[in-house]
């Protein structure tokens, strides 16, 4: 019996202590008609060797293509020390630090994490993670409704240049509470949110404006103008940011005159492997004045009976286990382990190292764009300054091009046709510091080949 330590003698002694004739008797309270048949649909158990062989075979099926997709999940170098430490049983197999005295390791790490996130974002307080970047945006919208006492409209402006999945999640997650999400267009030539379009909302009750920097296209938004516009109208500013980019881009806390009010994003670039989509972690930070509206766990520093500093969960009255139906969110289990990875990653990189990462990403992406846009049939979509992604327009459908690249072991980018049909055939490509000059050359060569093979539409 894998994972069950009981010997037959143990079972007999235990049943005797309980006063039950057999294990089955322990289920006597279950109405007989509810009892189930055997789980015939479940295969027989495998031992560890067998299951690992199965998983090796499955992994081999997926291979290790050269990746140029970003679109919200980025391949970065992850220092070996990060997961060596995160995988330690004391982090890996602990749970939420309810017993503070026996959980100082997790608690202090969260406190350090909160410190680093506030330092990066320029916000005052951060929580101990939400599920991912997308749910962080939806939580931020709900939070804005609670925090913005001046607004009664529950109306949030969500630019079309924000990650389409983030928008979809926000739609699905806030609709029940009646939030009204309105799309702001982007300027076709620049790929930037259209500041002009805001004129239409000049005198209306807007609860919050979401600004993603860099936006989904990798383009840098005019965050100062957008923030000031929102604040001037009593709307809160929700910043959605890539944490790597914050090494070189203005901290949201300094956007415009007042700074963003809520800062969220996906922490994946900070030490979390791509891992087929997760686990990652959503980060969330805000002003101290809004801390009681923030969802999720928060750790505070305090002292023990002897006056020794220590850490504990605090402001729990916001949370479901105390406040139940009136809680700021239903979130309970979060992404703790990934948050720890992020903390260790940031400690290793520091601000100077992270700046190097950001610079390398920008340089590699510029090189990639140059190498691809040189090919006939490929051109860049937008003229604006960008971070580490770019939109490329193709003269033929994107899907078969991507499929032909995949057949050559290259994941060539994210197909924008579904979410942005107005662009025509278009790819979102990305190169981080993990891509070498040779990788970029390999992509360009494969693309040249593919463009010869795949027809123009």
């Amino acid at each position, binding site marked *: 019996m894998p994972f069950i330590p009981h010997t037959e003698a143990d079972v007999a002694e*235990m049943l005797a202590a309980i006063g039950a004739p057999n294990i089955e008797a322990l289920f006597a*309270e279950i109405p007989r008609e509810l009892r189930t048949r055997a789980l015939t649909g479940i*295969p027989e158990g495998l031992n560890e060797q067998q299951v690992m062989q199965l998983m090796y075979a*499955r992994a081999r099926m997926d*291979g290790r293509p050269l990746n140029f997709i970003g679109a*919200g*999940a980025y391949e970065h170098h992850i220092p070996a020390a990060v997961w060596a430490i995160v995988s330690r*049983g004391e982090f890996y197999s602990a749970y939420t630090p309810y017993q503070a005295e026996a959980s100082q390791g997790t608690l202090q790490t969260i406190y350090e994490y909160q410190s680093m996130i506030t330092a990066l974002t320029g916000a005052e307080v951060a929580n101990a993670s939400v599920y991912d970047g997308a749910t962080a945006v939806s939580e931020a919208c709900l939070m804005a409704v609670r925090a913005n006492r001046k607004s009664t409209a529950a109306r949030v402006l969500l630019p079309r240049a924000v990650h389409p999945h983030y928008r979809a999640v926000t739609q699905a997650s806030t609709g029940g509470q009646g939030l009204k999400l309105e799309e702001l267009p982007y300027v076709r030539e620049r790929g930037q949110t259209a500041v002009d379009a805001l004129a239409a909302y000049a005198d209306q009750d807007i609860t919050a404006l979401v600004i993603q920097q860099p936006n989904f296209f990798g383009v840098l938004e005019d965050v100062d103008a957008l923030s000031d516009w929102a604040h001037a109208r009593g709307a809160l500013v929700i910043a959605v940011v890539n944490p790597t980019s914050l090494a070189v881009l203005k901290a949201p806390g300094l956007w415009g005159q007042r700074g963003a009010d809520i800062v969220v994003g996906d922490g994946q670039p900070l030490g979390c492997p791509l891992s087929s989509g997760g686990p990652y972690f959503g980060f969330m930070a805000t002003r101290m004045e809004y801390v009681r509206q923030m969802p999720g766990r928060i750790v505070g520093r305090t002292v023990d009976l002897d006056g020794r500093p220590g850490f504990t969960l605090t402001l729990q009255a916001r949370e479901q286990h105390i406040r139940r139906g009136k809680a700021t969110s*239903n979130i309970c289990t979060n992404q703790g382990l990934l948050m720890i990875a992020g903390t260790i990653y940031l*400690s290793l990189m520091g601000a100077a190292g992270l700046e190097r990462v950001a610079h390398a990403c920008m340089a590699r992406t510029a090189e990639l764009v140059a190498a691809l846009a040189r090919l006939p049939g490929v051109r860049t979509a937008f003229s604006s300054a960008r971070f580490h992604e770019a939109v490329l327009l193709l003269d033929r459908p994107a899907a078969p091009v991507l499929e032909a690249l995949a057949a050559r072991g290259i994941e060539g980018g994210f197909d924008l046709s579904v979410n942005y049909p107005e662009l025509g055939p278009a790819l979102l490509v990305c190169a981080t510091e993990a891509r070498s000059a040779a990788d970029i050359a390999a992509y360009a060569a494969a693309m040249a080949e593919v463009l010869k093979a795949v027809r123009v539409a």
Partner: protein
Amino acid sequence: MTLPMVEPLIYDYGRAGRGARGQWPAAESVVPAVPAALRRARRAALPEVSELDVVRHYTRLSQLNFSIDTHFYPLGSCTMKYNPRACNAAALLPEFLGRHPLASTRHSQGFLACMFELQEMLKEVTGMQGVALTPMAGAHGEFAGVAMIRAYHRARGDLARNEIIVPTAAHGTNPATATMCGCVAREVGVGPDGDVDLVALRAAVGPKTAGIMLTNPSTLGVFERHIPEIARIVHDAGGLLYYDGANLNAILGKVRPGDMEFDVIHMNLHKTFSTPHGGGGPGAGAVGVGPRLLPYLPLPVVARSGEGDAARYRWLGEQDLPQSIGRLTGFNGNAGVLLRAYVYMRMLGRDGMSRVGEYATLNSNYLLARLQQAGFIAAYPQRRASHEFILTLKALAQQQGVTAMDVAKRLLDFGFHAPTTYFPLLVPECLLIEPTETESKETLDAFVAAMAEILREAASDPDTLRGAPHTMPVRRLDDVRAARELDLAHRPAAA
């Protein structure tokens, strides 16, 4: 009096100019310019430390934790069982770890095959007809479930149904979820034996009833005996039945929510299928649905075409499931957690799966019996324990002034993580104890011995309990001060 910290902050190891340079990419000679107005002016105040500092600091911090790998951790409702290392090893295979979530179908067949089979196994285990894997924790699964219930009523034009019935014994996430979904949580009580008060339930249902969220075994640690009646009452009133499957560990292979007429269930894969809890997460809150809710499953889900060697897998999207409640995650949920759960289920297999429920229940009833013999009072002495049970220390609190909190803290000194305390809120001075099936009789006996000793101390030396813990890195922490004098981040000078 301020004493030094047990372990300094990582910032305290920093010095201007220090850094783990082996981790930094080479400096670039040419970097595309960032427009001046968008540029960061001052570097963020992050630690400036060496790689050795980082390794030593976080290794030391980790040692300050209790965890399953080091301690018995009978935290009720959390199913802290052994996390097999093979699950971790499989999820960390480089092909899975390096796979982009938006990678081509060509480079996804192995991963998708695992996900598809996981969906199928979860259907079998729950008796449901469709499963979506993307919710990232139990509460997230609850959201998906209630959103589907809402979508179902809306699709039928039944717009008035916005009440979710929640027994008072429910986990806090249940009412919170109802609120998040724009519903109203309507509480009904439980009787003295821990089952739902059917009279109150009958009074509560009506044309506004969207559904009921039922945890079974309930958070009181007992199996709800009136499920058939509850199902009838709610369904007859036009509501749907939601099964909070966080406690699935108790019933694996014994009963299936689908067979019991439930319309939707969320599971906590990080509990029942033993993925690590990671100091607060990540989790995975897959949802299963019966026929009524199939069209509303959240996106994406995995589909298979072909069989055997010809099988091909792909994600279904909006076009495939136009009535879906939509996307709940940036990509496709906590894939790495799902892989771990998949591996665990494959290792358990058919037989192992039913043994989970059996031995979890055996351990729980044994521990309850022994603790009762040692003088502790069960909250529901007339009931069988499920995989967990509740002790109430009300008498102890009244007679000796020793609270459940004191007992919990003292247990730490004996090398045991404390059970869940003060939850469920229904039972005063309660300890919710869940040993799980992976713990041995010897460990349970040692825990009983510690509890018995604590009971003796409560009589002979209550101050030792009130001052506990005494052997942890810190003594009892001042929570009131933490909330009053908020210190939520270290603020070093920026570089």
